[in-house]
């Protein structure tokens, strides 16, 4: 066991400290408020009211608030321990690059697994969720059994905690000892779980989007002699998807974070690598590193969404102000 290796034990001069606080759970790491949120975006939207004076005032008030938060943090009785345990630059760097010889993985390398799982799951979710949504929206009597199945699916996977599904898939499928199904990696089971669970949510987002397209659009498309499939593909879906990009991306930001849950199966993703570092070295700055890496992933996605929405609106209203 890595944790019991004397080289990494609590008394190790470099890694273990007698005064280390008891390990805290992973979620408590206090990220610094991201100043970029206030200043990085498009000014006019966040700072309503405009004008130089407004900018100065908002800048000052922001600085005051940040300074107050920092002061409380620094003045807290346990401040130095917390700073050491969660924000130690040396440990942050060590956990980021990793060191297999000392028994811990690189969090920076492990995040690639999260990214790959996220990308794979995202594609699968977009497809499966669309199929479910279309089945639920179908009207023909022939598809009735499928509609019921789709409804049960959505109810089930929205109702059962993702973590339980993760255990069921990650430990249940291998236990079946089937030739192909039972011999996949934990990352694959993780992707399957995320796809099963998120498809239920995303199918409802799709459904809302399909309903948001006015029925007259369907009538217009069909009246031109387009088949149902063609009308769906060229007329209904493009409008539906345009309407649901923000909630869709919201779900995908959430999905990016939930790739961390695959760690419970033993896959070495960023969160798991950070936990291993923490329990090996007894310093939890690795969790802060993982948190920062997740932020680095999710924030660009959010800005990307904003830009997509802006571009679409501008393209359709270009020059309307002239």
């Amino acid at each position, binding site marked *: 066991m890595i944790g019991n290796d004397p080289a990494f034990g609590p008394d190790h001069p470099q890694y273990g400290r007698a005064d280390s606080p008891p390990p805290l759970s992973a979620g408590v790491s206090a990220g610094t408020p991201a100043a970029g949120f206030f200043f990085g975006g498009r000014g006019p939207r966040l700072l309503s009211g405009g004008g130089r004076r407004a900018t100065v005032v908002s800048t000052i008030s922001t600085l005051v608030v940040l300074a107050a938060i920092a002061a409380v943090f620094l003045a807290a009785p346990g401040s130095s321990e917390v700073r050491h345990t969660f924000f130690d630059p040396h440990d942050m760097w060590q956990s980021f690059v990793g060191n297999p010889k000392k028994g811990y993985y690189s969090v920076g390398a492990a995040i690639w697994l999260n990214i790959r799982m996220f990308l794979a799951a995202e594609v699968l979710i977009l497809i499966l969720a669309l199929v479910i949504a279309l089945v639920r929206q179908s009207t023909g009597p022939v598809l009735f059994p499928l509609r019921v199945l789709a409804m049960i699916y959505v109810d089930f996977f929205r109702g059962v905690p993702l973590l339980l599904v993760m255990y069921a898939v990650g430990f249940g499928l291998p236990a079946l000892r089937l030739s192909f199904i039972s011999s996949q990696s934990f990352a694959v089971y993780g992707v399957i779980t995320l796809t099963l669970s998120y498809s239920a949510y995303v199918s409802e987002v799709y459904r809302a989007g399909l309903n948001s397209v006015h029925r007259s659009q369907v009538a217009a498309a069909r009246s031109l002699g387009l*088949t149902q499939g063609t009308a769906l593909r060229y007329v209904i879906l493009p409008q539906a998807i345009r309407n649901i990009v923000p909630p869709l991306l919201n779900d995908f930001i959430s999905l990016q974070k939930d790739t961390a849950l695959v760690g419970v199966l033993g896959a070495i993703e960023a969160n798991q690598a950070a936990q291993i570092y923490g329990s090996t070295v007894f310093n939890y700055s690795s969790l802060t590193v993982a948190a920062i890496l997740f932020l680095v992933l999710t924030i660009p996605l959010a800005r990307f969404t904003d830009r997509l929405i802006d571009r679409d609106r501008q393209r359709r209203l270009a020059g309307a102000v002239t």
Partner: protein
Amino acid sequence: MTVDSQPSAIVVEDLYKSFGPNPVLSGVSLELAAHEVVCLIGASGSGKSTLLRCINLLEPIDSGGISLLGQEVTGPGVDANLVRRQVGIVFQSYNLFPHMTVLRNVTLAPMKALRVPRAQAEEAARELLTRFGLADKQGEYPDRLSGGQQQRVAIVRALAMKPQIMLLDEVTSALDPELVAEVLDVVRELAAGGMTMLIATHEMGFAKDIANRVCFLEDGMIIESAPPAELFTEPKDERTRRFLRRIVEAGRL
């Protein structure tokens, strides 16, 4: 397909249609010869729009029958898509596809339903747009056009399928008064070109000078059907007279 005027363009026989418990059409019979222009008038809710939608197979009917260009279209085994390709319909609220440019709105159906190559579809579309004074709008998105322009695009979009029959469902009702004329001019041009048209309208003056025949609908029935000169000046039925009196009082005739 029938090339020319032998069979009637539209035959509606004893058509019944209800939405739930509410009867909308109660035994409508109507016949249009090729190249004929017939206007449907009547109060809102009299069944004019539903009749048009039934003819385009956008609404299933309860009983009766519809034949278009000599073919029964309400029986079993009829491909609604094939029927609709020969019958253009234009709606009161334009219903352009907001996510497509004008050009794409017009070329979509020819390309996807008729498999016309893109270059050819676009050329045909530009020709039609030019003919109706919309040549400079082909790259625009619908929400940048005026209502009149949007409605003209909607007409062009329907025409791009080269339909033999056009159904117009109160195409000027959503327009500002000063934009009505430009759309009606387009319809007049179509009539002059020999297009068979069934037009639901509130524009009595327009009906008067474009229609070969005017049908007055009330409570889902055709009460009276006559050439406009006759129907507007000496209506036979009391209900027609009452309707026309109200129209005159409202200053719309």
